[in-house]
């Protein structure tokens, strides 16, 4: 058998594929975070909580409404987006134009509340959520057993990422958003309804987190804690990709997923800090991140 660094080639192929799947989650999550940070200059610490909220909404829809995975994939993110839009309108919007620290502190507090309340209601061990029947089971790829559902996750996340990227980088709406980031009063003086735009942006970002949450529900335990440790890693992904760069967040998400996958084989203890090591190196060499425009 061909061996690479003491690992049989097929096993390595399997590990790379797994890395890619995890990368899909990083990409989706960092995408939402990058949208919110890039356009609102808010470091959305509640992103992990919104991800958790997405998963829990799907779970609750199933438990109490008998609504299954496919409808939930649409409905749950919309619910989370609407709730987030309300929060933005009533509270977060008061903090724009101030130091980003305040947005961070606010969303941090929000995350504590959301996670705390769910932990109080549902405990920490989590709730089960089964993959949709159509995607149950797996196929043997020869080098590994591939759950069909995970294949679906890769495809779905790619599609969502590209659609979002297009919306922001290639449409007029996106140009308004980017301009509003720099000088909101002026864009408003040009006749653009900036507050509405910002609300929609926050809702979009939160909705993306919730989609990731619904997609994660059949794989991970639906637990109040599922997002809390993720946020900081995902934020690192955004920074490595280059803040404000949507494409950067997506590509880096996949790349770091792969890298983390490899670390899990060669030095598993370090698998959750490898991203930070990469971040330190990248920022020292390329201050604006891999895909960032230098300021």
């Amino acid at each position, binding site marked *: 058998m061909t061996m690479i660094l003491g690992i049989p080639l097929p096993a390595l192929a399997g590990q790379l594929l797994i890395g890619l799947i995890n990368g899909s989650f990083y990409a989706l999550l960092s995408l939402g975070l990058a949208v919110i940070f890039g356009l609102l200059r808010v470091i959305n610490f509640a992103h992990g909580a919104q991800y958790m909220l997405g998963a829990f909404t799907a779970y609750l829809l199933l438990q109490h409404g008998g609504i299954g995975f496919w409808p939930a994939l649409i409905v749950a993110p919309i619910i989370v987006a609407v709730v987030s839009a309300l929060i933005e309108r009533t509270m977060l919007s008061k903090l724009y134009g101030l130091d980003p620290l305040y947005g961070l*502190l606010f969303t941090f507090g929000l995350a504590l*509340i959301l996670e705390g309340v769910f932990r109080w209601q549902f405990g920490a061990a989590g709730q089960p959520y089964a993959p949709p029947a159509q995607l149950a089971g797996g196929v043997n790829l020869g080098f590994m057993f591939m759950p069909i559902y995970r294949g679906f996750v890769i495809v779905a996340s790619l599609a969502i990422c590209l659609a979002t990227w297009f919306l922001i980088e290639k449409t007029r709406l996106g140009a308004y958003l980017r301009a509003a980031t720099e000088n909101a009063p002026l864009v408003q003086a040009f006749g653009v309804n900036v507050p509405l735009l910002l609300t929609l942006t926050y809702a979009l970002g939160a909705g993306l987190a919730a989609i990731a949450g619904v997609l994660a529900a059949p794989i991970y335990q639906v637990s109040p804690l599922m997002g809390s440790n993720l946020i900081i890693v995902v934020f690192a992904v955004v920074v490595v990709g280059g803040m404000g760069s949507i494409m950067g967040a997506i590509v880096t998400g996949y790349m770091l997923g792969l890298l983390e996958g490899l670390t899990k084989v060669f030095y598993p203890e370090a698998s959750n800090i490898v991203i930070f090591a990469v971040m330190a190196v990248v920022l020292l060499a390329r201050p604006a991140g891999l895909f960032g425009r230098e300021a």
Partner: protein
Amino acid sequence: MSTLVAPKAATAGTRQQRDPLGRIGLAAALLGLVGLVAAPFFVYPVFLMSVLCFALFACAFNLLLGYAGLLSFGHAAFFGGAAYVTAHAVKEWGWEPLSAILLGTAGAAFLGLLIGLLAIRRQGIYFAMITLALSQMVAFIFLQTPFTHGEDGIQNVPRGHLLGVIDLNEPLAMYFFVLAIFVLGFLAVWRIVHSPYGHILQAIRENENRAVSLGYRVDRYKLGAFVMSAALAGTAGSTKALVTQIATLTDVQWQMSGEVILMTLLGGMGTMLGPVVGAGLVILLQNYLAAVGFPVTVLIGIIFVLCVLLFRRGIVGEAIRLLKK
């Protein structure tokens, strides 16, 4: 938008001593000190000591954020690192407590120099992220090194005898020892902020390019501030190790870096007394809300949200604003 610091935070008036606000501040500080001297006779000393340690930690952090405009997201590395060093020195090598604290401080300063050399080359959010990344690696090293005993931490750290004479197991002796450290640390921060050097730090925070064009080697000023802040954070961590008699992973993890940011903002960054008040409040919440049967984190979350929405300048910051009126 690009700076990470609230503009109005620190105009630490160079003539502060003379204006009425400065006098009120001084009065408040003195009153606070008198209160602290009397406090252990009314309030539980160990609680007070924890507050003092975290207050010093927050003051050190505020030196960097509130006055130099640098948001470090890695200060836990200095706090927790120093706690480990001191705990180990006291417990395994039998060091005298004061010298162990100095050792922890020196260790933190050295770590601050290493991290600072890399981090100060970047600004704003990138600075925050580099400090986070490097401190995560520091935390990882502490997790992997045997002397820290993993998540069990270094337990039952003896408080020992100060300079070989004063028994620090006496709660009051320990309390006044900690109070002395705190007051010295606080004065050090105060002096640095209200010094010619502090004035340049503020200028750099306001407009780095302009400072460069005036001939200031801004990197050295920032590095200086970073190392001083790290060292003081280390003093706080070392002292905390003796107060609670443990040093654990919680002290070096990023959540601790987050906590000190919260304390500082809650109290009012860029004010001298803000971090002290913020630290007191957070510690109070963590310890006393623990028994109310409602999730502590939810309550803390609600307080942060309210604080950001209603008292944006922090408690002390808002008080100053009211007084100015």
